[in-house]
């Protein structure tokens, strides 16, 4: 490994606070100005089962967790069995000796926890205390962290953590020297980045019905909306979600919805409505393994093709997918701008691995724009005025002018028509708008190119992070081309890369990005690396696979 990476895994049952411990660890590293990547793995249940959180940190940019850890803390036997193989040589394994039989350092975590209320729920704090010991943090600093991060039962948590700290100190002591980084960093989850990005671009209302892995964005707005001036609404179903958001857009409110594949099916009729009435709404689509209910709490990129032509009929659609958490912030803001500029719905496509992982970021909110439509200035108003570029200025109620948005084919005023000429003209208008959109995208960054190695690795979405980290890990020279925009597909950016030796890396079974590259650009990758077991790539593993090819 080139860079110095420290990895920490904490495993236990759902309800023991392992996820929280991972996030706390990530925040702690970021506070030290260290780069960090944190990933949660949990099944679809509320208590029990097996959850784990893994945090990798370095002083230089890090794009993925690693599945080989320097410190593993396990709270139960199942976690022990799973994670004992996840240790690097010389790694430290600490187990809860009350529940686990095994090799490594045993500490009586459960018996200590029993002394406090909600003993189950606080065990995760032990993981933080042990981490503190191992990286040489003193108890005062530990107290600060606990006070900051844990809302409830602070005193219990502190007492508990001290007891664990003391036992751990006795048995293992400080093992790692943590260098501080230089840049002020903050660790954000993908969902938080999406939330802040939308807010930065002027979001007014977020509508959603819970569905993993889009739910954290709903919770983000529910928790922070008041401060940010964003209203959060959870209606009765996804159909209401989408139609309410469209209604809200009619008043000029910037609105956004969030869902996952199954919920997005239910929104497609409204998506087409938005296309027809030219309503600007941003749809966040978080992927998980499908089809159907699939594997709700895991990750996959199986809905790329599904996302390209949602909703019946022809109208301009936009789909883009962020390649890392920082980009999730900027891209969300950019998409909110685009939907208002072009008055057409867009999809922010992501996946569980991005939305529910955290990463150190340095974000400058001022670099975003405030979503602004072309607005009607004066004189007679026609909602669907034919303009050169297909974009008709907006006007919001209340107004003396008549504002008619119409799901039927319509004339410029917005009244229903069945006239053949008008039908064709309005089709042309929307196609013109599509071309305006494409022209506009041509001036934007629609693909990201990382590195300048000769062979090319094509990828998209959160897999970009895995690929970048794998290259770093393996010291592999290659260029990574990440398709940020997927609809309209940025063929214009890819022509020059057509004949380069390339591979595709993606997280699905049928090779959807590969198919798109073949279809759209006649790019024929020599090899395709796909993973579709619900788990994100491990960069080490991925590096070996890439090296096999190049």
């Amino acid at each position, binding site marked *: 490994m080139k860079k110095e990476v420290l990895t920490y895994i904490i495993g236990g049952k759902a309800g023991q606070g392992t996820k929280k411990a991972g996030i706390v660890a990530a925040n702690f590293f970021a506070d030290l100005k260290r780069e960090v990547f944190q990933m949660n793995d949990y099944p679809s249940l509320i208590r029990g089962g097996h959850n784990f959180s893994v945090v990798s940190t370095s002083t230089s940019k890090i794009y993925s967790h690693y599945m080989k850890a320097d410190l593993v803390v396990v709270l139960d036997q199942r976690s022990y069995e799973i994670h004992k193989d996840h240790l690097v040589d010389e790694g430290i394994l600490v187990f809860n000796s009350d529940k686990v039989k095994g090799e490594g350092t045993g500490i009586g975590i459960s018996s200590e926890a029993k002394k406090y209320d909600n003993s189950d729920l606080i065990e995760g704090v032990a993981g933080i205390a042990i981490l503190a010991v191992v990286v040489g943090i003193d108890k005062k600093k530990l107290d600060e962290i606990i006070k900051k991060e844990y809302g409830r039962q602070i005193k219990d948590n502190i007492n508990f953590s001290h007891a664990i700290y003391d036992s751990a100190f006795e048995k293992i002591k400080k093992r790692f020297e943590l260098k501080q980084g230089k840049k002020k960093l903050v660790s954000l989850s993908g969902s938080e980045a999406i939330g802040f990005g939308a807010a930065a671009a002027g979001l*007014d*209302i977020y509508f959603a019905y819970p569905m993993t892995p889009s739910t954290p964005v709903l919770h983000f707005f529910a928790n922070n909306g008041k401060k940010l001036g964003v209203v959060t609404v959870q209606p009765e179903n996804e159909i209401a979600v989408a*139609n*309410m958001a*469209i209604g*809200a857009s009619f008043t*000029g*409110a910037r609105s956004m919805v969030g869902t996952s594949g199954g919920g997005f099916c239910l929104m497609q009729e409204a998506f087409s409505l938005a296309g027809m009435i030219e309503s600007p709404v941003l749809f966040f689509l978080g992927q998980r393994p499908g089809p159907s209910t699939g594997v709700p709490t895991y990750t996959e990129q199986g809905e790329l093709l599904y996302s390209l032509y949602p909703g019946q009929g022809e109208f301009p659609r936009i789909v883009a997918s962020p390649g890392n958490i920082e980009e999730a912030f900027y891209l969300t803001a950019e998409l909110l701008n685009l939907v208002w500029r072009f008055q057409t719905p867009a999809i922010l496509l992501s996946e569980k691995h991005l939305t529910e992982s955290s990463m150190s970021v340095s*974000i400058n909110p001022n670099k975003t724009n405030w979503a602004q439509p072309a607005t009607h200035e004066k004189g007679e108003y026609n909602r669907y005025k034919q303009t050169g570029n297909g974009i008709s200025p907006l006007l919001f109620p209340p107004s003396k002018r008549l504002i008619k948005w119409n*799901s039927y084919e319509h004339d410029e005023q917005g009244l229903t028509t069945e006239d053949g000429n008008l039908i064709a003209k309005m089709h042309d208008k929307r196609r013109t708008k599509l071309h305006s959109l494409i022209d506009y995208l041509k001036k934007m960054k629609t693909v990201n190119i990382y590195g300048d190695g000769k062979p090319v690795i094509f990828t998209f979405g959160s897999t970009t992070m895995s690929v970048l980290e794998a290259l770093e890990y393996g010291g592999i020279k290659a260029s990574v081309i990440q398709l940020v925009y997927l609809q309209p597909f940025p063929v214009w950016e890819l022509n020059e890369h057509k004949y380069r030796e390339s591979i595709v890396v993606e997280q699905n079974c049928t090779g959807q990005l590969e198919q798109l590259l073949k279809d759209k650009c006649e790019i024929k990758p020599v090899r395709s690396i796909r993973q579709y077991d619900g788990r994100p790539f491990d960069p080490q593993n991925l590096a070996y696979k890439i090296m096999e090819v190049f």
Partner: protein
Amino acid sequence: MTKNVLDTNAEITWCPGCGNFGILNAFKKAVDKLENKGVNRDSIIISSGIGCHGKIFDYIKLSGLYSIHGRSMATVQGIKIGNPNLKVIAFAGDGDAYGEGIAHMIFAAKRNADITVIVHNNGAYALTTGQFSPTSKKGFKGPSRPEGNIEDPLNPLSLLLEAGATFVARGYSAKMDHLSDLIVEAIMHEGFSVIDVLQPSVVFNNTYKLYNEKAEIIHKPAKNLDGAIKLVKDTKQRMPIGVFYDVRKLVFHKELMGDWNPSQNKMSRNERLKKINEFV
């Protein structure tokens, strides 16, 4: 019909004699009355579903959003949240409101969303050529069930009362003035209001004779929910029309946002960015 300021240039394509004309005229009259009560026409926003009823959208010169089948009540809830200063009215068919859109109706009632739904209840999916609808009588013959509907009809108003509706009325398209008063009251009501309008479809369900005989105006809402439920179901001997239930309750958008208006009181970009910077 003389030209009205609320008329548009759209050609009216309802069948001659259709009950929808009565609803259209009652509504236009109601808008006049509302203006007398200080409700500015520009702040009255309409929406509709798809069906014969939906065409009313094209015939009224008021701003709005011609929605899709069964969703106009979701649409107007979104409009109301986006700008609570607007008065929002959803026109819906019986197929629209009580079939495809029943969930939105129930939840709009439950949360006391401050919207008005005017249901053109003709007991048929008229525009799609007369299939049975949720309010079609058992035995009703339509092309998807030529031997007659095998289901009993819903009583949509008792359902909505149970769901929490705070204003429930029934009107009859042939009693235009009465209907127009109902519309005014419903729109002035702060909270979820629904008017189930008996609307004869001369082609698929010509109920003029029936309702001309049975319609009976009720002058006072029931004193309580039980009374209202009884009233809306009291349709064997007569067909009561009027306001059956009218109570006050804090409306959804106020529960949600107090006096905040998302599209009008928008936070400035600077302030928003400052807030975000505090976090990140």
